[in-house]
C-alpha cells in the first residue's frame, strides 16, 4: 500500500475477547520510520489492534487471536517466538502515565537492567541520553533519585516514554498517550513523536483527529472492528474514499 518498507505486517488478524469478535480480518502493512495513527470511534477496536502488536493481550484470560502479525518478518504469534524479545522491540506509551514505584533514575534504568546491563556508568549514559531525548533532563537532573510519582503528569508521561526508549526499541506504540495531559504537555509529546520518527516507527491510537493530522504520515480508520480506510494522512482526512470515513471525519460518527 505504501512504498516504504513495512515494519509491522498484519495478515488475516481476528481477535475475540470473551466471545465477542473485536477485530475482523485485519490486513495491513505499517511502514518504517513514520508515524501511523489509528483513528476511529470509541470501542471500535483501535486499542485492541495496538495491543496485538506487542501481545499485551496475553495477560488477559479470555482473548483468542488468530492470524499473523509479522514484525521485521518474524511472526510474533508463533509459539516459538520469545515474547520478551518482541516486547523489547516496542516501547508502549499508555493512556495515563504509570511510573514504576521507584525513583526517576530507576524508572529509566529498569528496562536496561532487566536486559542485563549492570554497570553504573553504562546505565548513567542511557538514563541521561533518554531523558534528554524526551526533553526531561533539564527538569529532573538534580533530583534523579526522588520518586517518579512526584513529577507532574506531563513529566511522568515523558518519563514513561524515556523508560520505553531506554530498552532500545524500534517501534513506539502510543495508546491515546496525550489524553490525560494538558495542552502544553500534549504538544511537547506530539513534537517528540515527530522528532522520534527519524529513528523509530511510531503507531498511535488517537481519537483526536487534529492530533492525527498534526503528527501522522498515515492514517488507519477503524470502524466496528474492521479497517475501513488506510492511506496518507492528507488523503484520508481531506479526500476520503469511503463514505464511512467521510462521515467520521466530518464528525457524524462519534
Amino acid at each position, binding site marked *: 500500500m505504501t512504498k516504504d518498507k513495512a515494519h509491522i505486517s498484519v495478515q488475516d488478524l481476528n481477535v475475540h475477547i470473551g466471545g465477542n469478535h473485536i477485530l475482523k480480518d485485519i490486513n495491513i502493512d505499517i511502514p518504517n520510520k513514520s508515524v501511523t495513527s489509528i483513528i476511529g470511534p470509541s470501542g471500535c477496536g483501535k486499542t485492541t489492534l495496538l495491543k496485538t502488536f506487542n501481545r499485551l493481550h496475553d495477560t488477559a484470560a479470555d482473548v483468542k487471536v488468530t492470524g499473523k502479525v509479522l514484525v521485521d518478518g518474524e511472526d510474533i504469534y508463533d509459539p516459538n517466538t520469545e515474547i520478551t524479545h518482541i516486547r523489547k522491540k516496542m516501547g508502549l506509551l499508555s493512556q495515563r502515565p*504509570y511510573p*514504576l*514505584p521507584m525513583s526517576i533514575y530507576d524508572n529509566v534504568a529498569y528496562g536496561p537492567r532487566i536486559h542485563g546491563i549492570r554497570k553504573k556508568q553504562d546505565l548513567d549514559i542511557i538514563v541521561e541520553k533518554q531523558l534528554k531525548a524526551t526533553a526531561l533532563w533539564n527538569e529532573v537532573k538534580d533530583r534523579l533519585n526522588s520518586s517518579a510519582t512526584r513529577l507532574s503528569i506531563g513529566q511522568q508521561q515523558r518519563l514513561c516514554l524515556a523508560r520505553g526508549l531506554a530498552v532500545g526499541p524500534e517501534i513506539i506504540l502510543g495508546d491515546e498517550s496525550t489524553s490525560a495531559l494538558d495542552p502544553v504537555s500534549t504538544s511537547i509529546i506530539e513534537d517528540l513523536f515527530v522528532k522520534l520518527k527519524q529513528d523509530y516507527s511510531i503507531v498511535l491510537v488517537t481519537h483526536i483527529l487534529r492530533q492525527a493530522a498534526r503528527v501522522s504520515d498515515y492514517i488507519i480508520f477503524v470502524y466496528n472492528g474492521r479497517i475501513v480506510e488506510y492511506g496518507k494522512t492528507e488523503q484520508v482526512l481531506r479526500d476520503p474514499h469511503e463514505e464511512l470515513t467521510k462521515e467520521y471525519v466530518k464528525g457524524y460518527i462519534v
Partner: protein
Amino acid sequence: MLLFTVLSVSLVFIIGIGLYYKSIPVLQNSTWWHLLTSSVWKPLKGLFGFYPYIMGTLWVTGIAIIIALPLCVLTSLYIVEYAHSRVRRILMPFVNLLSGIPPVIFGVWGVLFIIPLIQDHIAPHFVEFSTGYSVLAGGIVLAVMIFPLIVSIINEVLRTMPQELKDASLALGATKWETVKKVILRKALPGIIAATVLAISRAFGETIAVLMVCGNNAVVPHSVFDAGYPLPALIANNYGDMMSIPLYDSALMFAALLLFIIILLFNIISRIILTRLERRISA
C-alpha cells in the same frame, strides 16, 4: 451515630484507664522497671516479674510472623497473579473458612498434631529433649490462625493494582516473575506491612490456642523448643483463681495493661512507618 462513634472510641481510653486503676496496688508495691525486668514470679511473697511473660509473648508472635509472612505473600501472589480464575474461585473460600474456625480447635489441632511432630521429628534434630510444648508450637498454630487475615488483605492490595502498571513493566520486555518481584511487590509493600501489623496485633492477644500448646512455663525462652508463657495465657489461666493472694488480682490487671500498651505502641509505631513508606513510594 456520632454518639456511638464517640462511645466506641472513648471505650479504648476507658479500658486503658480502668486497667491502670486496677494495677495501682501492684505498682505501689514495686516499680515499673522492676515489674518489667524481673524474672521472679512469687505471688505468695508479692513478687511479680513480668519479663518471662513479655518475652514469651514476643517469641510466639515473632515466630508466627516469620512463618506466616512468606507463605502468605507467596499464596496471595499465586492466587491473584498466577492461578486460573476457576482455581481462584475454589481456593478463596477455603482460605476464608480457615478464619472462621474457632481458636480452641486450632489449639486441639496443635496438641494432637503439632506437638507430637515437634517432639518426635523436629526437635530431636536440634536439641536433646523437648516435650513439644514450646514457643515454636505456639508460633506454628498462631501462624495458621493469622494466615487467612494476611492473605485476604494482601489479596485485596494485589487485586487493586492497576493492570497498566504491570503492562508497563511487561511492555519493556520484563518477564512475569521480574514484574512481580520488582514492580508488584514493591508497590504492594505498604499493604503487606499493614497486613502484617494487623496480624501481629491479633497475634499478641491470641489466647486459648496458644495457651494450649506453648507449655506455660514462666521462664524466658532461649530457643524455639523452650516452653514459654505469653501474657494472655497468664491472665486466662489465673484470673479468678487464687484471689486469696494479695496483689495477685492487681498483678494480672497489670499484665492486661502491659498487653494493652504493647499493642497500642506497636500500632502507633507501625502507623508512622507506614505513612513514611507510602510517602516514599506510592502516589
